């Protein structure tokens, strides 16, 4: 599997209270990340593939990987659609 990473040239981010806020530099759209989305965003640091992220997520939330997989895949699809993932 390929390594997954954010594309830092496409967004700006900040953390306010318990929320991570991302702005697409292309569209100006805001994204609010909490919970699993926030964890996945943190794990997209350019050192892990999908399987590694899923394993860490399952451990962090003490849940079966099968349960976390749909969350992960839909979030990754959203990031791709917004152009926030680096080409792998």
């Amino acid at each position, binding site marked *: 599997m390929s390594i997954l990473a954010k594309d830092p040239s496409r967004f*700006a981010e*900040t953390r*306010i209270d318990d*929320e991570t*806020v991302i702005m697409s*530099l292309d569209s100006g759209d*805001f994204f*609010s990340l909490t919970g699993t989305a926030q964890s996945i965003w943190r794990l997209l640091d350019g050192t892990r593939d999908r399987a590694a992220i899923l394993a860490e997520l399952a451990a962090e939330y003490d849940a079966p990987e099968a349960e976390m997989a749909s969350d992960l895949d839909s979030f990754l699809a959203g990031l791709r659609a917004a152009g926030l993932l680096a080409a792998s």
Partner: protein
Amino acid sequence: MPQAALALSDPHPAVALLAHEMRVRRGKVPRGIGGHAVARDQFHITGESYLMRAENGIAVHYRRGDGLTLEAPDDADPRDVALWLNGSVYAAVAALNGLLPIHASAVAWNGRVHAFSGPPGAGKSTLAAGLGAEGLPLFCDDTLILDVSGAGPIQCLPGHKRLKLWPEGMALAGATAGEQVASDYPKHFAEPAAGAVAEVLPLAEILFLEPGDRPELLAITPAERIARLQDDHYTARLFEAAAALPRAERFAQLAGIAARIPMRRFLRPFDPGRFAEGRGFLAIAIRQDAPS
């Protein structure tokens, strides 16, 4: 007595700066600034200057450090001139000097400022005036100037213009109507029932006014706080144009401000017959506020 004398002669630096920059001289104003021609009923702002030309022939030019130049027809109504100087021009001068104008009215309580924002017609001025009848003094009407510099609490500059209300707002707020604001602008000036505060105070929170079935205060997420700051009426656009920052830096700036400003939505029935219900609910909520 020495302390009072010191306070009178030593205003907050941002207040002193604005007073200095708002000095007005009469003269011809340029047709455009920054290579941008400005037609009647338009304005333009650069990093250093601002030019507005009103439909009625009034025009104002500002350059940072130089003050204002006013051009007006001989028969211009002084009330019209005052409306422009105290409104859009004041907000632009504030923005060009690093201050953040917000489209909001506000009251003061317990040494802090409670501001109400929303689109035109949302009831900002009427609510501020109505809270005066509940004993809460007015802080500003329509434009709230924030000093966001420094790391401490965001400071609010006291209002510089008189409370203006539509006739129906005057009746709702129980205020007494003064003279009409301008010949072609049927708002009237009103004296705030609990007086006005004229000192720089920290901001408690901004409430966004929205219609609802019953009075309630609802939380606003951090992302929405940034978006609301960005969407604030014309004043935020002035600030953005004055700062002329790339999108990423603009985001960082707004995020930094949003992180320091508590915001909530204030829902209440928009029906005039239920105005007192929302006003009373909010007066209690504000009086319960204590600095954290």
